[in-house]
């Protein structure tokens, strides 16, 4: 799973390590950005955004869905789809063992959780990546759950929102994983044919095959502050071009500056922003 870490600059790696050791059970934790010592409950109450420096910490998929969606009337989609080892892929450990470990560690069955429900009373299907599950890598299960989510949106005539956090394709599924890029993106053409909106929210990090498939074809493309988003990892680029990367390279602010995304939205206002955008695109009146 450490292949995702390879994509990230050293600072992020360090941050990730610290977070792992302090965040889940500790009462206190350190912000990887400003190094302030934070009371974990405060951080949670603040949507995992550092109260001192506004650094957006990574959020688990279900916690994210809780932040975004209304509590009532939710139904999970595609949970019945489970990983399979089609290639009998074994490196230092067999793929099924890696999957099992990730399942134990995260409590999820794969790297995408799809939920149908409402955002401030606006119906939507929201698909959310679980980065802690094998680096949020995209394999067959993710592709199928994504497509089932899109189909549910079509059936319910509502918008489809995807919140990304991924190192890219899941190598252990070989070419199947590459084909998920084509599959997920093609399903968006179905959604478009029904005139339904597709909004992507790119969070830290969104790289490789996820970045280079449906992430940038949203009707509206949103990113979280300072999220690392790109096709190739900074290290790969540095090794290829043999020069230092510019300050803030591949960060959300950089992408906004280059015209790659529509807006950067603070986590506190994401719920409002999404429901408002969905309502406009579905030509509904202003919410009461």
């Amino acid at each position, binding site marked *: 799973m450490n292949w995702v870490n390879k994509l990230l600059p050293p600072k992020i790696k360090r941050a990730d390590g610290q977070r792992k050791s302090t965040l889940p059970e500790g009462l206190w934790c350190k912000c990887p950005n400003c190094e302030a010592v934070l009371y974990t409950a405060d951080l949670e109450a603040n949507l995992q955004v550092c109260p001192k420096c506004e650094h957006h910490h990574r959020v688990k998929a279900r916690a994210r869905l809780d932040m975004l969606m209304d509590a009532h009337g939710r139904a999970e989609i595609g949970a019945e789809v489970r990983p399979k080892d089609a*290639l009998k892929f074994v490196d230092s450990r067999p793929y099924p063992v890696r999957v099992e470990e990730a399942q134990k560690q995260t409590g999820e069955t794969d790297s995408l959780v799809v939920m149908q429900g409402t955002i401030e009373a606006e119906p939507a299907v929201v698909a959310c990546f679980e980065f802690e599950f094998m680096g949020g890598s995209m394999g*067959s299960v993710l592709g199928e759950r994504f497509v089932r989510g899109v189909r549910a949106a079509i059936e319910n005539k509502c918008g489809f929102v995807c919140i990304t956090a991924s190192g890219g394709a899941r190598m252990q599924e070989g070419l*199947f994983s590459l084909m998920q890029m084509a599959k997920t993106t*093609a399903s968006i053409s179905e959604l478009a044919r029904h005139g339904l909106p597709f909004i992507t929210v790119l969070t830290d990090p969104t790289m490789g095959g996820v970045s280079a498939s*449906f992430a940038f*074809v949203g009707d509206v493309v949103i990113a979280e502050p300072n999220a690392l988003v790109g*096709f190739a990892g900074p290290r790969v*680029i540095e090794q290829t071009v043999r020069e230092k990367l510019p300050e803030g390279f591949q960060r959300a602010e950089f992408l906004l500056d280059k015209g790659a995304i529509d807006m950067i939205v603070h986590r506190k206002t994401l719920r409002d922003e999404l429901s408002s955008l969905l309502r406009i695109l579905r030509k509904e009146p202003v919410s009461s």
Partner: protein
Amino acid sequence: MKTTFLDFEQPIAELEGKIEELRAMQDESGVDISEEVERLAEKSRTLSNDIYAKLTPWQSAQVARHPQRPYTFDYIENIFTDFHELHGDRAFADDTAIVGGLARLNGDPCVVIGHQKGRDTKEKIYRNFGMPRPEGYRKALRLMKLAEKFGLPVFTFVDTPGAYPGIGAEERGQSEAIGRNLLVMAELKTPIIVTVIGEGGSGGALAIAVGDEVLMLQHSTYAVISPEGCATILWKSAEKASEAAEIMGITAGRLKGLGLIDQIVEETPGGAHRDVVGMAKNLKQALEKALGHVSGLDHEALVRRRIDRLMAYGAFDEVAA
């Protein structure tokens, strides 16, 4: 050009060397030893066939990257007529790592698009080693739209180590360019026939490889990451590339077995590079056959079929909900 031999082809190289020597000797001495030469040539062919019949995945990867492997322009020259190269993405630049244009196949108008690698050092640099930047994908997209407008089938030829990982490429939206192509190709209202002719390198390959029929030359490869890249990540060593190639399933045979490609195009004995004209002939037949499968469909049925195919890609289990 002198044939380049790969490591595992050394027995063939030795035989070919002997044949050369004998020919030279014959020319000098005037003694007729053509029988002996022909005997050795036959032996060399058999040896080639034997070696190529059981290539390991890693050896296939080397053949797919062979310096004399036919590239897109070689197939354009030998399969199509009336080729008019069209340049540029109309926004930023002309990317020379992807070429394309209007042409005819058996007299029928069509659009051809492909990755293009270079032969010598200078040309390799000019073609950026077949690694496209966003402009290349946007040029390809423009040509696909052109094909759709005039109802021309699109033939794409895939041969890239991957999309270029550079600063400018990221700044100009490499991800968006690839993603946009995936979306537009899924719904393009004209047939798209894809052939992997060499290296099918990940997203950089897929960006021109969504189609109605996906062909692979017998010794080409198609993968989500290069064997070296996979080995570096999993074993922290590019040396293990051959093992990685083995487990990833990158060969035409394996991918056909998994249902991820439709047709394997047989290569000429000793690999496509030993007989470009013969190879082009095989490929031309395969392209005609592939187009035949979809040319009768109306737009709606064509796009429906393509999207259904895309939706069927995946290997997963399903438990009771």
